[in-house]
């Protein structure tokens, strides 16, 4: 990882010094263990803040908002690059405004899995040579990094950046498409069990909108929950309001979600969300043969239609 960090810093310094970009979006060491934090670097002297490690779970494409005419560089792993492409397709900015420092992803860890494995509050954590060195009150433990990979990362089929301007690190071997275990398991349950699970998970939602804020695709200036005439759903934790909020937020990602997991990672109440987004991604693949962010030509499924295909869909789903 150190080599990657070095290369990222070098490239960032060069791009900033040459005034090729206004700023560099990347990761810095986080204030919480096991979680690197996003950072926006303006000054070439600050590039030493930039790091790259297995704690870089956020989707940095989230910070490509309100670019105006600016040109920025962004450190992007596989899923981030797909978000960037999806945003370009949705005309949020143009391709030449973004210098993509692509990093083939080594898969990110799930800090919650680590927290479960360690019996005590984690005070410090360090990654070294495939190991996670975790420090708690009065003891240290060494864990194998590969045992704590986030479930989405384990199922990822697009770890290599699809487009990039600079490539940092060696391309990795892509896995074949396997069903995402959480949505597959969810679908196996009976309808009553599925609803019970959904209801139970959502009972913890406090409407903090962390999921929305973390998502690169939730860029609406006015979110539907903020609309007031009419007010679609109450801004409260009344169960039906929460359930509809979550259904619609996920639904608004249909054909736009890149399975980065930022939403679930951001949730302060540890609510499971990935079975929702992956369920919709499965639907998009099945119904429209569409996967988000693979190229800048394909329109997202809700922005287009296929008259011939429609006949069949209606027959299957009209009842």
């Amino acid at each position: 990882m150190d080599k990657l960090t070095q290369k990222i810093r070098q490239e960032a310094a060069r791009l900033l010094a040459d005034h090729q970009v206004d700023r560099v979006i990347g990761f810095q060491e986080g204030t919480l263990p096991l979680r690197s934090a996003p950072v926006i670097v303006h000054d070439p002297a600050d590039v030493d803040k930039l790091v790259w490690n297995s704690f870089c779970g956020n989707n940095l494409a989230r910070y490509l908002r309100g670019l105006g005419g600016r040109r920025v560089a962004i450190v992007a792993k596989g899923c981030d690059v797909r978000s960037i492409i999806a945003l370009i397709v949705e005309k949020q900015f143009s391709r030449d405004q973004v210098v993509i420092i692509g990093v083939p992803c080594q898969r990110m860890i799930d800090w919650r899995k680590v927290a479960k494995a360690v019996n005590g509050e984690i005070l410090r954590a360090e990654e070294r040579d495939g190991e996670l060195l975790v420090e708690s009150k009065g003891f240290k433990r060494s864990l194998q990094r590969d045992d704590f990979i986030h479930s989405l990362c384990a199922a990822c089929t697009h770890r290599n950046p699809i487009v990039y301007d600079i490539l940092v690190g060696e391309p990795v071997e892509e896995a074949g498409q396997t069903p995402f275990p959480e949505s597959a398991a969810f679908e196996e349950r009976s309808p009553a069990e599925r609803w019970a699970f959904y209801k139970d998970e959502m009972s913890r939602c406090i409407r903090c909108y962390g999921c929305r804020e973390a998502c690169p695709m939730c860029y609406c200036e006015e979110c539907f929950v903020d609309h007031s005439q009419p007010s679609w759903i109450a801004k409260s934790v009344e169960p039906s309001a929460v359930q509809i909020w979550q259904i619609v937020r996920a639904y608004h990602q249909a054909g736009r979600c890149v399975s980065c997991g930022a939403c679930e990672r951001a949730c302060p109440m540890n609510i499971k969300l990935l079975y929702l987004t992956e369920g919709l991604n499965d639907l998009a693949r099945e119904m429209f043969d569409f996967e988000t962010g693979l190229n800048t030509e394909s329109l997202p499924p809700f922005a287009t239609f296929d008259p011939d295909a429609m006949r069949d869909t209606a027959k299957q789903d009209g009842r």
Partner: protein
Amino acid sequence: MNADITKTDWAPRVLVLLCNWPLYTQSDLAEVAKTREIPQVRVLKVPCAGRINPLFILMALQEGNDGVLVVGCPPESCHYKAGNYLSNRKLVVLKRFLEYLGMEEGRVRFEWIANPEQGGLSRLVREHYEHVKQFGPVEKLVRSHFASGPLSYSSP
């Protein structure tokens, strides 16, 4: 809220979102009137199925409608060219997503009315009505009684 479930002939409350164009002539309007005679069925006309915000369907369920039937124009018949195609995608995905979450299959239904056959609409609505009856009153997504209505303009 719905009729008391303990009454033996509970009638489901069904909302039909009907596009303006399939049933347009005088004889067609008679068909719509016939549909409205089915107890607890409300027909809401929209200019095009493409106008339907998926939130309408969710609001309908939240307000206690036991069934929501969306009726649009068949392929190549949209008065506005493509509204039915776009709504098909949006609404069928919503419908399948709700069923993925455990909503009873068929409470929400998207259908198009073939170029007006006599009795087509009322037959379709009856079919949906009977289908929804078997599920009993809707419970999922229904607003809890203590909360004030989301579509109210005045403060509680």
